[in-house]
Structures are given as structure tokens and as C-alpha cells.
């Protein structure tokens, strides 16, 4: 069973629907016991990093999710679910995240419209990423975010995208996968990613 974690930050039904369409057996839940038993974990979410960590803590979900990630349970982070993997965010005065990926999450600066919202493409940086199996050069994905991740260890970077500057738009190492864009809102190209995640073997890659 794939647990889609409801920690009060939304982005739930669209993700659930995409996973159902991809043939996944899913459960939208805020229950830590269900998270602990899950074969795979999806962390969606939209909005503030600090608020998100607060909500996760108040539901006692930080520890179970961290342990699952450490144990090699396939994890897919979407938008906030990617950002929360990082050590900290500039938002709300340096809030700490899961700390799985060293580096900060930063706000777009300069003369850009924020949030970065709409369709954009990817440059694949890391061959063999199971999430992007079948992804084509001309595939576009749907973004809505004001912050972007900056992994210190560039070997995490699975894809980059340009918005004013080039930023890391997806990460991958082992069983940890995450996208800054929303696969569930990215039509066929996005559904392919969801299917790829559903089809991953349940244990560590």
C-alpha cells in the first residue's frame, strides 16, 4: 500500500486520483501507524515550509517518515514534499526540515513573477533515474512554487529547470525521489512518472 500523507497542507485528491489512475493501491492518511506500515510513501503539499514542519510535528509524523526514508522505503516528494527533505528553508527564519539532503531551500529573487506558475520543461541530469523512465525532451510539467531547492551535493540533482536561473527541479538518490513540479497536474508526462513510481519494487532500490 502507498501512503499519501495528509499533514494538513493539502494537495491530496489530485495526487490520490493520479495514483489510482496509475493502478496504485493508495491510502490518504494522517495516521502514523499506517505510514509506518506503508510500502511506499508520497508526501505532497503546497505552501509554507515552516507551517508544514509544524503540522508534521503536531501529528507526530516527522520521526516515522524519517525512519521510513532511512530504511529505504521508496519515497516520492511532491513540491513541499521535495523541499522538506532539505536541511533548512529561508522561509520563516531558517526552519529545519528532514535533513535528508544537505542544503537550503531558497526564495526566487529578482524581477520574477512569484510564484513560478505554469508549464516548464526539464533537463535530465542523471541518467537512469527510475522516475523519468520514458520521459522525453519535449515533455512539459506543471509548476507552482515560490521557493526552490539548492542541494550542496550536486549528485542529488536529477533534473534542472530554468526560471530566471537554472534550479534543481527534481532529486534522486537510492529510494528517495522528489519533484518540485506537480506530476499529478502534468497530464500524460506526469502520469508516466506516477506510473513509474507505482511500478517500483517496494523495498530499497
Amino acid at each position, binding site marked *: 500500500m502507498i501512503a499519501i500523507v*495528509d499533514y*494538513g*497542507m*493539502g*494537495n*491530496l*485528491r*489530485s495526487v490520490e486520483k493520479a495514483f489510482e489512475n496509475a493502478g496504485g493501491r493508495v491510502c490518504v492518511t494522517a495516521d502514523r501507524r499506517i505510514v509506518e506500515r506503508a510500502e511506499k510513501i508520497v508526501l505532497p503539499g*503546497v*505552501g*509554507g515550509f515552516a*507551517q508544514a514542519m509544524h503540522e508534521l510535528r503536531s501529528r507526530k509524523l516527522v520521526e516515522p517518515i524519517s525512519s521510513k526514508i532511512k530504511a529505504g522505503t521508496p519515497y516520492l516528494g511532491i513540491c513541499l514534499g521535495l523541499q522538506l527533505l532539505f536541511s533548512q528553508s529561508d*522561509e*520563516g527564519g531558517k526552519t529545519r526540515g528532514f535533513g535528508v539532503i544537505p542544503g537550503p531551500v531558497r526564495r526566487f529573487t529578482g524581477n520574477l513573477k*512569484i*510564484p513560478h*506558475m505554469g508549464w516548464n520543461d526539464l533537463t535530465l541530469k542523471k541518467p537512469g533515474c527510475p522516475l523519468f523512465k520514458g520521459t522525453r525532451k519535449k515533455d512539459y510539467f506543471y509548476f*507552482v*512554487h*515560490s521557493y526552490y531547492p539548492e542541494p550542496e551535493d550536486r549528485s542529488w540533482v536529477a533534473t534542472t529547470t530554468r526560471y530566471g536561473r537554472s534550479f534543481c527541479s527534481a532529486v534522486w538518490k537510492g529510494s528517495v525521489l522528489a519533484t518540485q513540479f506537480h506530476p499529478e497536474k502534468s497530464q500524460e508526462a506526469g502520469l508516466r512518472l506516477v506510473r513509474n513510481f507505482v511500478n517500483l519494487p517496494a523495498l530499497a532500490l
Partner: protein
Amino acid sequence: MIPIPAIDLKDGKVVRLLRGDFKQEKIYSEHPDRVAKAFAEEGATRLHVVDLDGALTGRPTNQRSVEAILEQVNIPVELGGGLRDLDTVYSYFEMGVRWAVLGTKACLDGGFLREALAEFKDRLIIAVDAKDGFVASDGWTKKTNLRAVEFAKKAEGLGAKTILYTDIARDGALVGPNIDALKTMAGEFKLDLIASGGVGSLDDLKKLSELRLSNVCGAIIGKAFYEKKFSVKEAIAVCS
């Protein structure tokens, strides 16, 4: 119950309307962010921001002001006005808005209400804007044939956690809240209620607070603050 200061935006300015009438507006400030900061410094723990142009036209119009407000304050902000599709709600959440207030589209389109609640759950506040017991839409310029109580029931059934109940006839009129209607609503529903419309004096707020309606979690206060009938500090003291 907490007092929630309201910042209504029209053409980038802070205004108050009388009973939602766009012809009866009074401009209080050209700097919404300063107004927000002042409320926060006085101790407000939450702000209610409305994009009036957005409510009327159905498209977000005062985003720059909303952004400026979010940059100035750390307290959570709820925002309404012009939220008629999920992408717009997404963009406001990404800007840092904590709760989105859905009104018009939610009452006119049951499918949208269902989808939005399934997507965002607790982060939505469903606005029940009542005029003579019926829901009003489109910046309160149109009256629907949906009963306010029925709409609230429908929202509750679909998983809404919070209802913002506004008595339009009292909004901006400083005549006191509709205690009877609130009692009925509070008795009939388990979900959280935010009361809006009519609070004109510290006494009004005290009466509301003394009802001890456990599910009335907040009271929106607009004109009374701008007309300096009482301060945020006094409001907090009366509420607790």
C-alpha cells in the same frame, strides 16, 4: 474565540464598504502592508484579507497588495475574493496564504466545492454570506436561492472544517452581530464558525464572547477597528 482584523482591498487600497455596497466605500489607507503590520504589532494573531475587486470580477486583482501584506507579517492570513479555481488557490498558498476562503464558486458549483475540499481539507474556509437567510454571491451583488443553513450543511457534509458566517445586512454597519442567527448556526453545526458582520463596539464583542459558543472560534472585525471604536488589545482582552 479570537478577534480577526479584516483588511478589504480595492484598487490596492484598504477600504470598508457598507453592507457590501461598492458605491458606499470609505478609503482608510493606501498602504495595506502597513495596516497589516500595525494589526500584528497590536497583538492580532490572524488576519482576514479580502480582494474585493477579485470577489466582484471573479479574478484575483490585488495580488501585489496581498504579497506586500504577507511580506510584512508572520501571523497567519486567510484570504478570500476571486478564488474560483484550484490553480488560483494553489498560487495563493504558494504565496504564503494559510487559509483560502471560498464563497461564490463554492455555492454555485457543488462539484467544485467537493473537489476543493478533497484537495485542501482544513485549509479551506467556506464563506456563507447571508442576506435574509439566503446565500449571496459575486461580491454580494447577487442573491442565490440557496438557504444559508442548507449551504453550510452541504459544506459540512463534504468535509468542511470551518464556516465563515457573514450577515451582510450588518456588515460595516456597526449595529451588533446577529446573535440569534449565530446561536442557530452554532447549535446546528459541529464545525468551527467565524462570525462576521456588525461588531461595532467592545460591548458587541463581549456579548458574542459571553455566549460561550464553543465552536465560534473567531470574530471578524473591520470598521470598528478603522473607526477606532476599540483597539486590538482591548478586543483580545474581551475575547479571552
